[in-house]
């Protein structure tokens, strides 16, 4: 069902849409058992570029595979008032692959937009997967077994952001720790991030180094193109060399060290305080005399 599209349209997807769809799905999943969610995507089409800006939810009847038309019209009217230049470009849903039944909904939207797009979000979390689990499908008329049929074909898309979206996505991405509010966890998360980044860099450099050593010893046949790449990389280092950078870098380094020092100091002081209290209770005969303070 999915081959590449030949319509020549370029798709641009805004992150707001992805966040909306995933939010919709998560909400429904937490309230009742997970099921497919359906909604509309809106945006602008200028020439050959289709830019999908926003989305909203729709009421979907699973048994009859039909959308609530009245709801759709009302929502469309409301959105038209707020965003006059956006119009319905297509619809979205969740799932791992496009179904046959999706074509019904697709066809029903064809009276609003003669060539709707279908945005599919795969809600299963796959840690090995590197790109977004979002696919965009178009419909094309193909001749199969003698019958002209509409089938879904996959199209490529790019992510397009405006300034505001970039800021908010950045924010969401960095407040990953579950309580995320206190400065200490944020600092720890920040430092952990830097630590893992440096570790990864270190391991990669080590791989290269090992490879080059082996090449030098003659265990691996020489590969000149790789050597050229390595040499050009080395010539580009050090990447930043300026006094201003040194200053700022050392200052930040010192700040972090000072924070660690301060934290250890506080820790030590508190342990010392406890120790002194215990010592006084245990050994100083007179310190507790008259000390009938109320224990809280």
């Amino acid at each position, binding site marked *: 069902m999915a081959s590449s599209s030949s319509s020549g349209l370029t798709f641009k997807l805004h992150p707001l849409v992805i966040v909306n769809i995933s939010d919709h799905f998560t909400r429904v999943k937490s309230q009742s058992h997970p099921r497919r969610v359906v909604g509309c995507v809106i945006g602008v089409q200028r020439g050959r570029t289709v830019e999908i800006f926003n989305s909203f939810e729709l009421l979907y009847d699973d048994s009859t595979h039909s959308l609530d038309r009245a709801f759709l019209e009302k929502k469309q009217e409301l959105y038209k008032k707020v965003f006059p230049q956006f119009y319905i470009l297509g619809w979205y849903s969740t799932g791992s692959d496009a179904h046959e039944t999706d074509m019904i909904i697709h066809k029903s939207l064809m009276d609003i937009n003669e060539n709707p797009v279908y945005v599919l979000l795969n809600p299963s979390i796959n840690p090995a997967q590197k790109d977004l689990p979002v696919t965009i499908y178009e419909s094309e008329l193909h001749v199969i077994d003698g019958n002209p049929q509409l089938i879904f074909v996959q199209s490529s898309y790019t992510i397009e952001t405006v300034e505001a979206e970039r800021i908010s996505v950045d924010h969401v991405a960095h407040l990953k720790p579950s309580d995320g509010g206190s400065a200490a966890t944020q600092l720890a998360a920040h430092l952990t991030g830097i630590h893992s980044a440096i570790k990864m860099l270190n391991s990669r450099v080590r791989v290269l180094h090992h490879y080059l050593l082996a090449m030098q010893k003659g265990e691996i046949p020489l590969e000149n193109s790789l050597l050229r790449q390595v040499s050009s990389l080395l010539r580009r280092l050090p990447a930043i060399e300026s006094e201003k950078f040194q200053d700022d870098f050392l200052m930040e380094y010192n700040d972090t*060290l000072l924070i660690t020092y301060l934290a250890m100091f506080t820790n030590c002081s508190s*342990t010392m305080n406890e120790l002194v209290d215990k010592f006084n*209770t245990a050994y*100083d005969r007179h*310190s507790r005399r008259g000390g009938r303070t109320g*224990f809280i």
Partner: protein
Amino acid sequence: MNLSMSSVESLVAQIHGLSSNIGELTQLRNYLKQCDDLLRTESTRLAPLLTELDPSVHSLGYLYILEACTSAPISKDQANKLVLSVARFINVCAAEQIRLAPEKFISICKRLMLQVMLLEDPMRGVAPLLTSIRKLQSSTEQLTTLHPDFMLLCLLSKCYKIGLSVLEDDIFEVDLPRDLFLYCYYGGMICIGQKQFRKALELLHNVVTAPMPIISAIAVEAYKKYILVSLIHLGQFATSFPKYTSSAAQRNLKNFSQSYLELVNSYSTGKVSEVEKCVEIYKDTFGSDNNLGLVKQVVSSMYKRNIQRLTQTYLTLSLQDIANTVQLNSPKEAEMHVLQMIQEGDIYATINQKDGMVRFLEDPEQYKTCEMIERLDFSIQRIMRLSKKLTTMNEVMSCDPSYLGKVGKERQRFDYDDFYTVPSKFTI
């Protein structure tokens, strides 16, 4: 007596035979302990035995015999020989062997010290005692009984730098409380002599706040010096004691140092004339405590304190104004004082000699340099080690029966409603 001579011969043979490894050494030690009385009675005739033994290999045996030799009272001419022989032994002896008999080692070192003091040449004892401390300590964090003696010798012979080098080590274990008191007191005096007031303050603070069931005279003297050093270094003195001070100290120390507390009061007025008046009144007390030199330093530190206070109000000031505010006699004196303070790092300023103006500057440290990183790293390592030690001590203290007993008793009184599994009355 023939009998005793043969037993002494067998002793030498034993020492020769049993000095190779640690198992044999413990055996030898037990044997030597048994022979202790014998050695004592024969002390006068033991000298030739020493020649048969090699001090670096047979240190334990040599130690016992040497100790017995020197236990007899000695005349002045023999003192020199004694000092030489003991010093030589200390230099070559094997550290692990002498650690098996620390009391003997300590006693011969103390005798060495006594003799050098009698000979009125304390400097001869400094190097041997330093070696002896390093050999006796099981780690640099242990305070032995020889430490205060060493400090005393350094003070008497004015070898302050060596004393300072020993003071650099942090102390964690102490053999006898009296050692700690004396060590910190003498150490404080050495630091005062070298003008390292911060370290002196720390050491004297240790003496004043150390646990003591009854008030100790060392603590009283230390408290007086503590007040003076605090005035010189910090410009103020807090009369309240930290909570880890023993109650004996808290109640009694102030009674012994009334004149010093009066000095503190006059110092806080900020006027040099007041302080000088106070010094005049109590001159005899200060003199009898041998603290006159420190008191004079207190008076001169008054000027420093006042100039420092000026840096908080003014950005630039003329030398004449400084002289007037601080009650100095002339701008030249003010310039001298300011120059000295800049050199010592007490203030940051520049003197413009053309128009006699002084500009006060901020601390130029930006904390941006690699040296600062090294310092911070070093401090962080130190504090990590300290933190580990503190947590272990805390845990040990939590399991201490006397602590648990007192805590258990208190709980019973107040928690009627809750049911605790901790026994309410803890009897050991």
